[in-house]
Structures are given as C-alpha cells and as structure tokens.
C-alpha cells in the first residue's frame, strides 16, 4: 500500500476462535479510508468473520474469543471502555440475505435514526429521503414509503438495508456478500451504488465473485484457512499476484 493513503481500520495480530475452532490466525491488515477493499477466499477461510470483527458482530453469534487489536482511527475497538452500540453506529454492516424489519419502508430507514433520538417528523423525512436517494432507491419507493418493506423485491430490499445502514452516517460500511442472493441487474445496481458510496464512506466487501472484486474494489485481500495470504491494490493483485496460492485461486485452479 502506498504511504499517503490513510488507514481507517488497522488490524493488528488478530486471532479469532469460535468455541474451540480457530477461525483467524494473526491477521495484520490496514484498510484504507474512502476506498473499497474486497476480501476474497474460499468458503470457510474466515473472510466473513474478519469482516464481522470490525464492528464486534462475532460476539453476538457464538462463543467467540478474540485476541489482538482492531484500530478504528487509531483506537482499539476491543478495549473494554468501548461502547459496542456506539461502535456499531460508526461501523455499519449489511448481510448476505436482506433483512428488512417487517415495518414500512419509511420506518426501516427511520429505525436507526430513532435509536439516535431523532424524533422530529420533518428531520426524519429529510434524512430518510436522503438515505434512500444515496441508496439509489428513492425513485422506486417514493410512492410506497408507508407500504411494508417485505413486499419489495430482493434487490430493493438489499438497497433498503443499505439505506437503513447509511442513514445513521456510519464511517465504515461492511458488506458481507451483499449481492450473492440477487439477480444480475440488482447486483449491478448494488455495485454502482458502492462506487458512489466510497466518496463518503470506507467500504469493505466480502465476495465470492472474482469479477465483482475486480470490478468494484480498489484493494483486495486474499485469505485462506484463517490467514491473510496477500493484500494489495486490486489491479496488481489480479494481474500480477505475488503469491502462488493467490494466483491459483484467482484463476480458478482451487477454491
């Protein structure tokens, strides 16, 4: 990584265990600010777990033990004084399967804002509209804001979930295979959306799709068996990887 790029997140010697199973081993990584970083690797390599360790989502899932540090703007998020809820407000996450709340479109986006204590209808209206616009969903839902979000299509639901996440203005947005459950057109929309979002946010995306990683990301990290094998600019990584394993994976010889 070139020196002038500032690191938004810095992973230092991070190891992670689920119950007794080691998922991540001594990972060191710097996630650059206002860029898209993609995590690639075979299933079970730990890329989703690494992503979830950036806003401490792992500890909600199973018995997990995390050692090492993750620095957000230089502050260790695993420090005992860190408020997890506040951390998750700064580092949002979108999962593979769209999970809109069974409320109206409007209430979905307003949910996080209300958690922040915003109550005024005018202010909520504005913030909801702006979040939906940023998520490229406004034109499609402006007339059905008060209909149930469950009735939207899968692609719309996923963009709604992204709108919900960016409504509270996080600094980092984590995307865990955000398009893998979607059709090609919806996938394209999500990819365009990511491109727009990186002006304001630091994005980290986990993907199984090599073309997607190559298309959207600025940097790519390749993980295998819980270890970071290689991390570099995406162009370099996909044309001239320094590790044999990376080349094999990218060209489809294993994984």
């Amino acid at each position, binding site marked *: 990584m070139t020196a002038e790029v500032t690191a938004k997140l810095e992973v230092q010697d991070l190891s992670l265990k689920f119950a007794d199973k080691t998922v991540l081993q001594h990972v060191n990584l710097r996630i650059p600010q206002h860029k898209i970083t993609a995590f690639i690797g075979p299933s079970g390599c730990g890329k989703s777990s690494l992503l979830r360790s950036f806003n401490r*989502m792992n500890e909600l899932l199973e018995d997990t033990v995390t050692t090492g540090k993750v620095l957000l703007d230089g502050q260790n998020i695993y420090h005992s004084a860190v408020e997890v809820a506040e951390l998750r407000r700064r580092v949002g*996450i979108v999962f593979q399967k769209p*999970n809109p*709340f069974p409320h109206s479109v409007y209430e979905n986006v307003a949910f996080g804002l209300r*958690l922040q204590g915003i109550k005024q209808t005018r202010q909520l209206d504005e913030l909801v509209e702006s979040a939906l616009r940023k998520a490229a969903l406004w034109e499609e839902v402006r007339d059905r804001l008060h209909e149930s979000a*469950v009735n939207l299509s899968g692609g719309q639901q996923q963009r709604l979930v992204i709108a919900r*996440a960016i409504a509270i203005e996080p600094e980092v947005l984590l995307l865990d295979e955000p398009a893998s459950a979607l059709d090609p057109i919806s996938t394209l929309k999500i990819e365009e959306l990511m491109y727009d979002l990186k002006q304001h946010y630091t994005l980290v995306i986990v993907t199984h799709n090599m073309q997607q990683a190559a298309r959207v990301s600025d940097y790519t990290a390749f993980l295998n068996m819980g270890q970071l094998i290689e991390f570099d600019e995406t162009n370099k990584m996909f044309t001239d990887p320094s590790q044999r394993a990376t080349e094999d994976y990218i060209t489809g010889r294993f994984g």
Partner: protein
Amino acid sequence: MLRNWFRHGNPWIWLNAGAVALSLLLVGSLLVFMVVQSIGVFWPAEMPGHVGAKLVQYLSNWWHFLTGSSSHGGIFPAILGTVLMVLLMSVLVTPLGVLAAVYLHEYAKEGPLLRVIRVAVHNLAGVPSIVFGVFGLGFFVYFLGGSIDNLFYRDSLPTPTFGTPGLLWVSLTLALLTLPVVIVATEQGLAGIPKNLRLGCFALGATKAEVIWKIVLPQASPAMVTALMLAIARAAGEVAPLLFVGVVKSVPALPLSSEFPYLQLQQKITSLGMHIYDAGLQSQDAQRAEPLVFASALVLITLIFILNLTAYRLRKRLNLRYRNRPVSE
C-alpha cells in the same frame, strides 16, 4: 389381511383422518349436546298465546337468567365473578410470564442451571390444580393477606380484611396456575423470531435492551396473546382450587361498586364453574336443576369463546401491525 392393508394401502392417511374425525365428532357432539339440553329450558310451553308472544317470553327468561341475581335464579354474579377473576389473572400473569420468558430466553446463559429452571417451569404446569389451591390458602391468604392486615388494617382486627379468601387471592392463584403456560408459550414465540432481525437491529447501534424493546417484544406479541388465550381457557373453568381462596356458592354483594376503589379485591366471589358444581350436585331438586346446569355450562363455554375471540382478533391486529403478516400463526 390387516398386514397387507398396512403395507399396501395407505394406513397413515386413514388413521390420521380417523383421529381427526373422531376428535371433531367428540367436540361437535359436546357442543350439540350442551345446546340441545339447554335450548329448551326457558321455553314457556304452558304459556297460552301464539308463538311470537312465547318467543318474547323465552328471550326474556334467558335475559333474566343471565342478568338476575342468584336469589332470583339468575347467574349474573357468577358471570361477573368469572370475568373479573380471569381479567385480573390476565393482568397479573401476562407481565410476569413475559418478563420471565424474556429473561430465560434472552439473558440467561445456557447451562445446567437454566436447564433445571426450564424443567421446573414445565413441571409446574403438571402440578395438580388442587395443590395450587392449598398453596394459595396457606401462602396468599394466611401469610400475605395476614401480613397486609397486620400492616394496614390493624384497626379492624381480629376481623380479617385481606387475611381471608377473596377475589385478589383467587386471581393470584389462577395466575400462578397459568404462569408456566404463559412462560412456555412466550418463550416459543421468542425462539421463532428470525436471528437476522436481531442482528439487523444490533447492526444499527442498538443496545440489547433496545433490541428487546423494539424488535423482540413487538415480534413476540402475537405469541403472548396465544399464551394468554391458553391461560384464560385453563383458568375460566377451574373450581376446586378456588374453593380454598375465595370462590363461594353465593355472595351477598358484587365485588364491583360505584364508589372508589370500584373493585373490591378482598371480597369473595362466585363463578360459573362453582355455580355448575353447586347447582348440579348440591341442589335439592335435581329434576329442576339439571337443565339450568346445562344452560350455565353453555354460558361458560360461550364466555370462554368470546374471550378467546377477542384475543384472537387482538393477535391478528398485532400480527399485521408488527410483523406485516396477514395470516396468523
């Protein structure tokens, strides 16, 4: 031949359908029997006049039966007593059961202790109801009621105020009796909430308390109503345990009054179940009493049906409002 049928016929469909049919037949005949037995009770066969006049008299007889006091052969005190004890029970058992279920499902750590507690809750549901009656008398009436009297009603002692069976203790005993039902049903509701909804809520920076308040409880509200329906159905017909704690065969005054505090919690009540038992088995004139027993039983069933229907409609509304699911369950 049987063996052949079992192997090549379609035994399960026939057995299953047969079981359903038998159940329907039993429930149906129970309802039909009740209606047939009680429908003619108030028909004024001896009254002169044409059918219209008889019909008016018939309805008027029913009306008097439903709204009259016990000295006039009516069952109004019993209906009121049943409704009051069930409503008060609901008010007591719902928050307690829901809070306990939330604790067990959301906060308690899985482990041997939690397993023991779960088994205990399930076993509580299997305790014979008469035991709850004895417990209610010993703990609620004598201990709790006696303590309240000692603390707040010293002046009127030795005449007890709360230290004697009454409505409050009836409802508390019923609440204890139905508590496991509410806990178990609510916990099942909590378990049915998709994990990714909780995660989605956490992901927006919600604390655990906020997740429970904003997602878990609204999502589980239909299950809570289901739990309450089960509790009401079980409680409304109880008689034996309540004999210990405040249900009697006739009361001098209703537990409702027009003056503050409107509801007389320390007063004894009578209930439909009690009335059925009393009229059916303790009556001098069995010939005359029997149809009235069936009529009372029909009223009890109808009352439970109405309470359940109300709860069902509430659940439907909650489902629509919080889960955007037009279909219940």
